[in-house]
C-alpha cells in the first residue's frame, strides 16, 4: 500500500495500464513535456516516449476523432480533456462517433477509448474551468461514465476503464486532486469491485444520501454532522454514473424510506433527476417522503467569488436531509 494523492493515483493507473498493454496511448493538450496542467501525466512521456504520450495540437474534436481512428487500428487511446468546459468542441465526435460506432458496425468495431475529464468547481477558476457536464454523457447511449472520489478508486477504476472495450468517460474530481489515501498498487484488477458498482461508504438507517465524485467527502462530512445531531445517514458513492447501479440504492432506500441526492451540476436534468425518478419507480411503496435534490442551481457556473454559494456544501446537504426527514428546514411552511 502506498499513500498517494488522487493525481498520483491516476498517474499510477495510467502507468500501470501502459505497462500492461502496449496499445494504450495517451493524447491531449500539454500532457507530454509539461505533464498536464494538473501534472496527472507527469513523467509519462519521459518514460514511455512521445509516440505513446502524445502532445496534440489544440483541438478537442481532433483529439477524440483521431483517437477513434487509433481505436480502429487496435489502440486503446486515453484522451485528456484539459478542463470540463473544453469538452464541447469534441462533443460531436463523442456523441455521433465514439458512442455509436460499435452499434453502427453491428459489433465489428470496438471503441475502447477512455476520455479523462477533470471536472467540477471549488478551485477558484475563471469561466469554463469548473463545470459538471456529466449529465450530457449519461444521457448518451453507448457510453459508460464513471467518477472516482478517492485515490484507490481512481487508480482501480481508471485501469478498469482503459481495459473496458466500451468507451468510458472518466470524470476526475479536480478539487480533490490533492486529497490523499492508501492505494494498493498491486491489487489484482479482477478482484476489485466492478467498475459499474456503487458503494455504501457509510452505513445508516434514517435516510440515504447519494453522491459522486467531489461531493462524496462532503456527503461523508454531512453524515458525521448528522450523527452528532442524532440522524443516521447512509452514504452511497455512485462511482458509476452510467449505468447507475441501483441495487444498493434501492436496498438502502427500502430500509430508510428517504433519499437525498447531491451533485454540483445544475438541478434540471442533472443526475439527481434520473436517480429520483428511477428510485421512485423502484421504491414507491417504501418512500416516506419525496426524494430531495441538493444541487448546483440552474445557472451557468458563476464567477469564483460566488461559487461557494452555488456548490452544495455541508449546510445545504443537511438542509436537504432535514427536508427529507420532515424536520424544520429552509422550505418549511412552503407548499410543493
Amino acid at each position, binding site marked *: 500500500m502506498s499513500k498517494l494523492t488522487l493525481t498520483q493515483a491516476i498517474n499510477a493507473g495510467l502507468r500501470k495500464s501502459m505497462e500492461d498493454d502496449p496499445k494504450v496511448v495517451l493524447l491531449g493538450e500539454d500532457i507530454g513535456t509539461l505533464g498536464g496542467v494538473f501534472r496527472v501525466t507527469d513523467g509519462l512521456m519521459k518514460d514511455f516516449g512521445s509516440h505513446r504520450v502524445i502532445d496534440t495540437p489544440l483541438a478537442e474534436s*481532433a483529439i477524440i476523432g*483521431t483517437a477513434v*481512428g*487509433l481505436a480502429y487500428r487496435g489502440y486503446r487511446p486515453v484522451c485528456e480533456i484539459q478542463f470540463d468546459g473544453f469538452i464541447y468542441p469534441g462533443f460531436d*465526435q463523442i456523441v455521433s462517433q465514439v458512442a455509436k460506432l*460499435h*452499434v453502427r458496425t453491428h459489433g465489428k*468495431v470496438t471503441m475502447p477509448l477512455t476520455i479523462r475529464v477533470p471536472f467540477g468547481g471549488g478551485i477558484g477558476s475563471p469561466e469554463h474551468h469548473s463545470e459538471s457536464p456529466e449529465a450530457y454523457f449519461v444521457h448518451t447511449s453507448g457510453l459508460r461514465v464513471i467518477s472516482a472520489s478517492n485515490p484507490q478508486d481512481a487508480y482501480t477504476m481508471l485501469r478498469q476503464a482503459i481495459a473496458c*472495450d466500451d468507451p468510458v468517460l472518466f470524470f476526475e474530481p479536480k478539487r480533490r486532486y490533492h486529497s490523499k489515501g492508501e492505494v494498493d498498487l498491486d491489487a489484482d484488477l479482477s478482484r476489485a469491485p466492478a467498475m459499474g458498482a456503487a458503494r455504501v461508504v457509510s452505513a445508516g438507517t434514517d435516510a440515504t444520501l447519494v453522491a459522486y465524485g467531489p461531493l462524496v467527502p462532503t456527503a461523508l462530512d454531512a453524515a458525521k454532522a448528522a450523527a452528532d445531531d442524532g440522524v443516521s445517514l447512509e452514504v452511497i458513492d455512485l462511482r458509476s454514473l452510467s*449505468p447507475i447501479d441501483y441495487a444498493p440504492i434501492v436496498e438502502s432506500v427500502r430500509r430508510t424510506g428517504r433519499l437525498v441526492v447531491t451533485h454540483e451540476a445544475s438541478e434540471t436534468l442533472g443526475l439527481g433527476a434520473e436517480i429520483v425518478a428511477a428510485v421512485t419507480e423502484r421504491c414507491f411503496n417504501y418512500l416516506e417522503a419525496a426524494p430531495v435534490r441538493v444541487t448546483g442551481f440552474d445557472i451557468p457556473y458563476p464567477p469564483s467569488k460566488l461559487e461557494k454559494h452555488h456548490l452544495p456544501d455541508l449546510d445545504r446537504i443537511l438542509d436537504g436531509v432535514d427536508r427529507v426527514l420532515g424536520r424544520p428546514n429552509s422550505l418549511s411552511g412552503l407548499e410543493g
Partner: protein
Amino acid sequence: MLDTSSDSGPQPGIHQIIAADGTLHADEVLSPFVADVSDEQLVQLYRDMVVIRRIDTEATALQRQGQLALWPPMLGQEASQIGSVRALEEDDFIFPTYRENGVAYCRGADLAGIMSTWRGTANTGWDPHEFNMATPQIIIGAQTLHATGYAMGLTMDGKESLSIAYLGDGATSQGDVHESMVFAASFQAPVIFFCQNNHWAISEPVGLQAHSPIAGRAPGYGIPSLRVDGNDVLAVLAATRWAGARARSGGGPSFIEAVTYRMGAHTTADDPTRYRGVTELEEWGAKDPIARVRALLTARGKLDAGREAEIAGQADAVAAELRAGCINLPDPDPMALFDNVYTGDHAILDRQRDHFARYLAGFAATESATTTLEGSRS
C-alpha cells in the same frame, strides 16, 4: 453578397490524362504514375466504372420501387471512385462518406450488405476489419479525423501502409476537416485526403464553400496537393498513386481534389431542378467519365461490340444480384434493438430489454391474430 463566380467549371491547373473526347495527353506530374497501365488494365477500370454505374442505376430504381428508403447516387463520379480505390493496396484503410458505394463494392463488400443501410434494415452492412474499409459516414467531415488517427497508428506500428479519407467539396467547410489536416501535418501521418469536388453540396454550389480552389488549402498546412480531372480515371489513379507513394515512403499526408460532377440528385429525396439548370448538366454530360474511356479504348481497338456486351452482361448480373440481395434482406428482429450498444452487460439497458421482451410476449400471447403492433389495441 456572395460571390460564387469562382470555380464554376474545370480550370487551368487541373491535371488530366484522358480528355473528355477520349484523347490521351501526357501530364508531367501524373503520367509517370500510370506509365505501367496496360490497355487490358484500362479495360478493367472501364469495366469497374460500368458495373458501379449499373449498381447506381439499379439502386435508384429500387428506391423508386419502394425497396430502398434512400439512395445517394454516384452517377458521374465513377472515375473518381474507381481511380482512387484501384490505386490502393488491400491493407490500406478506407474511410468513406455515404456516397462511396462503388468503392465499397470494389473492396468486396457484399451487395446486400451495402444496400442494408439504404433499405434501413441495418445501420451499416459490412465488417470494416474484413475489407479495411469503414462503413458509410453521414456526419460530414467526421471520417477525416478517423483516417488521420488511423494513419498515426500506422506510423506507430511502423507499417508501410496508409489510410484514405473520402470527402466532398461541402465537407471542406467543416472544422473537423481542418483539424485533420493540422494533425496530419503535425504528425506527418500517412493519410490521403481525397476530395470529390462534385460541384454541389445538396443545393449549395462549391463556390459557397470555397472562394478559391479547394486544393489550394492544403499547402498552407504544409500538405502537398493536386487538382485533377475527377472524370478521368487515369488522372485519378495517378494522383492517388502519387499520394500513396508519398505516404508509404514516409512523406506524410497528401490532398487530392478530384474535380467531378454530381450528375444525379444529392439523394433520391432531393430535387435538383429546384437549384440548378440544364446547361450545367449538359456541359458535364459531355465530360462523362465512362464515355471518354470507351472512346479511347474503341479507338485503340480494345473494345468491340462483343466485349461491350460481355461487360454489360456482367453489370446486369451484378444488378440482379443486388436486387435479389436487397429485396431478400430480412427485417431485423425487434429484440435486435438492444444488440451491440455495449460489448458487455449494462444493468439499465438489460432491464429495458427484459421489459420489452415481456411486453412483446404479451402481444404474442394475447393477440396471436394481430401482426402489426401499431394500433392493435384500439
